[in-house]
């Protein structure tokens, strides 16, 4: 029972290798279906099998360490997990970033960057209104002048600017 509880608690450790293994399997199967299979799989096949073997050993080693009661994580690493403590700011950063990336093409780089930076500063509890308004505007303008004007790299314009 204790073994299952421990496994459930630390099961998150296997999210990353599971994603990688799932992608590798899907990719391997997709390439296997292509013509000239032997050429296209030259590198992919051995790499895929290495991933499968490594994943199996990783899981087996973890289960084994739990069974013998050895206090190690799946990684065997000293560093361990990195924690996110400031959850509100982190979530607002993630949501605003996604909205910003998908909004650039519609709103335009300068305006969306200004909005994005200003909103982030507000969510990050910056108190000075000068920083919230002027700093993002200055940065967006600087990037526009450098990229668009000086280096001739056209940034997305959108419906605004």
């Amino acid at each position, binding site marked *: 029972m204790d073994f299952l509880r421990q496994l459930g608690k630390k099961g998150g450790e296997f999210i990353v290798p599971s994603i990688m293994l799932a992608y590798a399997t899907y990719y391997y199967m997709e*390439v296997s279906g292509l013509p000239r299979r032997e050429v296209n799989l030259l*590198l992919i096949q051995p790499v895929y099998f290495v991933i499968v073997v490594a994943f199996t050993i*990783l899981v087996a080693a973890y289960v084994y360490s739990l069974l013998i009661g050895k206090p190690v994580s799946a990684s065997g*690493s000293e560093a361990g997990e*990195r924690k996110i403590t400031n959850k509100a700011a982190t979530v607002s950063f993630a949501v605003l970033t996604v909205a910003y*990336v998908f909004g650039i093409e519609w709103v335009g780089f300068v305006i969306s960057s200004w909005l994005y930076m200003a909103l982030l500063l507000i969510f990050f509890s910056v108190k000075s209104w000068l920083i919230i308004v002027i700093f993002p505007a200055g940065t967006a303008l600087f*990037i526009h002048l450098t990229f668009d004007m000086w280096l001739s790299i056209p940034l997305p314009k959108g419906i605004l600017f």
Partner: protein
Amino acid sequence: MFDAAPILEGLGLLADWKVMSIILLGVFFGIITGAIPGFSTPLAISIMLPLTYPMSPVLGIAFLTAIYAGGNFGSSISSILLNIPGSPQAIVTGFDGNPMTKQGRASEALGMAVASSAMGNLLGAFFLILVMPLIVTVALMFGPPELFLVGVLGLTVIAALHNSFLKAIIAGGFGVLLGTVGMTSTGAIRGTHGYFELMDGIPVIPALIGLIGFSELFYMLQQRYVTGGSKRKGESEKNLHSLLYGFGRVLKHPLTVLKSSTIGVIIGALPGAGATVASVVSYNEAKRSSKKPEGFGKGAEEGLISAESANNASEGGALATMLSLGIPGGLATAVMVGAFMLQGLIPGPRLFIDHQGLVYGIMFAQVVASFFLLMAGLLVSLYAAKVINIPTIVLIPLIAVFSVAGTYAISLQMFDVKIMLVFAALGILMRKYDYPLIAVILGIILGPILDRQLMRTFQGAGELSIGIFLNRPVSLILLCMILFCLAPIAFKIYRNAKESLGYARRT
């Protein structure tokens, strides 16, 4: 061997204030753009390419090579200070550079990076001048099997990247698979999911910025300053002192600089390998031969020096192949081939015969660029180091916007920015569960090299067997080097397994 007349002619071409000013300008431009995540050296060179059209050949090419030199160092600034490499070649610099920043040794790390970069660049230039014919001969001995093994040699570093060998292997393998996405030389389309933007493969720089840079911002948000909880005490005077101290520390490791630069020049001369592979192989070698390998990844001076010297010295090797054979080793030299053509010159054996003075002029411009890199690098670093005193809540929006602009600028498509976001999400998960991000990036970079060269080996021999690698002297040497690099890792795995079994028996 050396004819004095063209050498003097080359030196004469440089004795012009305009050439000197343009080299200085190029170095500054390269450093500043290089420090912006996503603004890679080839991009900086290609943007400035049209400007060289009205210039004289020596002026135009010296300008671009100076940007190249500056960019190689500039990308290390953000890698050291923020753990966000400006370009792939600065990834390895961050292995030890960023831990040094977290230990409050940011200026020292920057000083070391400037000195190693300038020395690497200078040694690369000397190699270019003195042993160019030899480099070319060695480079020509590298066929597809050898280039494949160079890629494998680069991969061996993945195994040593993390305390957990298995996690590193899974992440590295995943990266290699991602690196093979796109259209192959046989015309097959793999893993693009219908996105034509992926035909050329997963774009490396957006993946790099997302996985390493953007994901780092989420964790940076958890602390008040980049270095941790409190503002770093110390003003410009201390910064300058630390910069110069770091500079001096490089002089204590002459062998590391020399060895790494030699590795950098040789790998730089191989078409397709480039500065990133050079720094990876050099770092691996420095770690292997170090008396304190356990300090690598925790702020080891030799780690930073080896990575920086190699990636800057690789420029000399890349220029040697480009100038003498007309083969661009990477994107930056490919753009430079375009610059030569704009001037009505074709890089290759004839260039060295018909325009010896110009070739020597370009080589000496490299030497001058190294000295300017030292001065400009110290000056920029003096101010760049102040970045770590800006609160993260102000720094993060700034870095985020620059990262998006830099990523978009690579190919002017929002698809790259979206790719960056996907990799950022993966990066956050990988950081949370302590998986080596660098392994994925190295896999993405080395995957196409491995895949292409293995296919060429197969197509050339009609089959694939170990005999192909054993029957070629250079391949055999590379195989021995790979085994030599893997031996300590195998020993470590054996020791850990033995310890676990011993623990099981005791309990």
